[in-house]
């Protein structure tokens, strides 16, 4: 077993366990902390995929900024704890889990049927080159400059919208 496979197994199992714990945990603060753990493990997975820039952005933007914001709101509103996962409406929840598991089985079947690893050629040098800050910066400020500006305006509009919505008077 090479180091890459070991790292993949560790990060993937952390991802799976923390995401399942996140949706079953009755306390919302614990859910948010498990989601932070999940995002950190995802950043590790991005590193095994040679995507350095996105891995760092994931830690800073998602695990840092967005989740701190979520924790702020949870502690501000202090919502009551829900019951344990299968205590409230157990039949409905089991039904939902079974349906989603069937859909997941379908997706896994399609993935194995189409065998993408046969058709996609993987060159390690090209893959490493695609994830560097140089490549992403060059692409972003030449080919994708218009979407970049649009994302800036979107964030500005979202900031103003959030301020207007969360203002004291709501009319």
């Amino acid at each position, binding site marked *: 077993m090479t180091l890459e496979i070991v790292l993949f197994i560790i990060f993937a199992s952390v991802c799976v366990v923390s995401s399942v714990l*996140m949706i079953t945990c009755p306390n919302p603060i614990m859910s948010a902390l498990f989601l932070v753990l999940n995002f950190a493990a*995802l950043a590790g997975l991005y590193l095994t995929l040679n*995507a350095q820039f*996105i891995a760092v952005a994931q830690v800073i933007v998602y695990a840092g900024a967005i989740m701190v914001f979520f924790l702020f709101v949870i502690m501000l*509103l202090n919502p009551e704890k829900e019951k344990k996962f299968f205590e409230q409406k157990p039949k409905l929840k089991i039904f939902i889990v079974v349906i989603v598991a069937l859909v997941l089985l379908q997706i896994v079947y399609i993935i194995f049927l189409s065998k993408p690893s046969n058709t996609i050629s993987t060159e390690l040098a090209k893959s490493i080159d695609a*994830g560097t800050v140089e490549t992403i910066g060059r692409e972003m400020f030449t080919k994708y400059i218009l979407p970049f500006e649009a994302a800036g305006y979107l964030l500005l509009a*979202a900031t103003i*919208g959030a301020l207007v919505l*969360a203002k004291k008077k709501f009319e």
Partner: protein
Amino acid sequence: MPIPIEYYLILSAFMFSVGIVGVLTRRNAIVVFMSVELMLNSANLTLITFSSYLGDATGQLFVFFVMAVAAAEAAVGLAIIIAIFRNKLTVNIDEINILKW
């Protein structure tokens, strides 16, 4: 690349399914929101997987824009939740039914 691409795709599909279960079963609006974030991240994982295995940076740029949209969505969504909490003193989505016909 020693790891087959299927492993990443299955992990991403599993995380997306967990996100769907979270959205459908949890009753706390903030946790529903966090499940949506989980689904966004599983889609990001698929994009980065294909981008890396094809040696093309476009997928990673797309993930960057998805992150910007997710930040905007979280800000506006949580502001809406705060406004609802101020009016109804609850974030339980079973009790927020003023738009129900």
